[in-house]
């Protein structure tokens, strides 16, 4: 778990989301579960209770409910910047699934890896970044040319 060995990124937002209008970055949510097995019990309960309310409250998210034969149920979240996140919800309660879905809808699609600095600016310097001639006198830029008297006399 070294800093060079594990991926890291800088703090950023997706297209300055939130400066103007806030757009929910989650675009698609697919609930994959099985109709009969016991490990999808929580998912089935959530589909009975909370899925419709969640879909109504978040009109920008498309929710797909896919009952199929699968060994473990999972939730597939797709974001606007293309990242796909799969979360297994094996043997989770309906409440836990509700909180997980809330967390997924609050995330943007940026990867959950180490953030190098907790701050970011596009304009770090207001007065102009330091360079070696900032504190030197501007007379260094002046070059004096002296007319030679012999040339004057000859012309």
């Amino acid at each position, binding site marked *: *778990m070294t800093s060079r*060995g594990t991926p890291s990124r800088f703090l950023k937002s997706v297209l300055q989301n939130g400066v103007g209008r806030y757009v929910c970055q989650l675009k698609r949510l697919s609930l994959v579960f099985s109709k009969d097995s016991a490990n999808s019990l929580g998912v089935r309960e959530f589909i009975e209770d909370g899925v419709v309310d969640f879909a109504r409250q978040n009109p920008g998210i498309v929710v797909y409910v896919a009952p199929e034969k699968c060994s473990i149920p999972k939730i597939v979240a797709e974001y606007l910047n293309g990242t796909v996140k799969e979360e297994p919800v094996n043997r989770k309660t309906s409440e836990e699934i509700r909180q997980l879905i809330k967390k997924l809808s609050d995330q943007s699609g940026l990867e959950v890896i180490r953030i190098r600095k907790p701050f970011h600016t596009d304009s770090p*310097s207001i007065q*102009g*970044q*330091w360079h070696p001639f900032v*504190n030197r006198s501007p007379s260094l830029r002046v070059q004096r040319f002296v007319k030679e008297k012999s040339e004057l006399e000859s012309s």
Partner: protein
Amino acid sequence: MVFLSLSRWIRSRGPDRYWRVQEVLKHARHFRGRKNRCFRLAVRSVRRAFVFATKARKAKKRIMRTLWISRIAAATREHGMKYPALIHNLLKCQVALNRKVLSDLAITEPRTFKSLASLAKRRREEGFLVALGDKGEPEGIFSRIVHSQ
């Protein structure tokens, strides 16, 4: 002839050796030489890398502080002062900027840093006047201490 006991000699060793090895090798992929491929060498290198990373967390704080100090020292010398004088006099003027912020100002805000350096210089001169001059001299304006409520 029928070989019946041949099949009994085949053993199934542990089925997940591959994944146990990959868990270690994935941390060694950016290493140089055979230790990024061979498990026996990688185990030692990965362990050392983790130990170095653990120790470096404390050292990083020290290293960053010395970096900030050297940057502030260079910037103050451009303005004709020295680092200890700057820090002590800024402290006496109740300017509670830490070394990180001072080094960032020196890089991105050179004029602000120049004004801080001149403030410290003036406070230093006032300190000398108080120490060396006679007691009848009034204290300079930068030597006044503001008491927060």
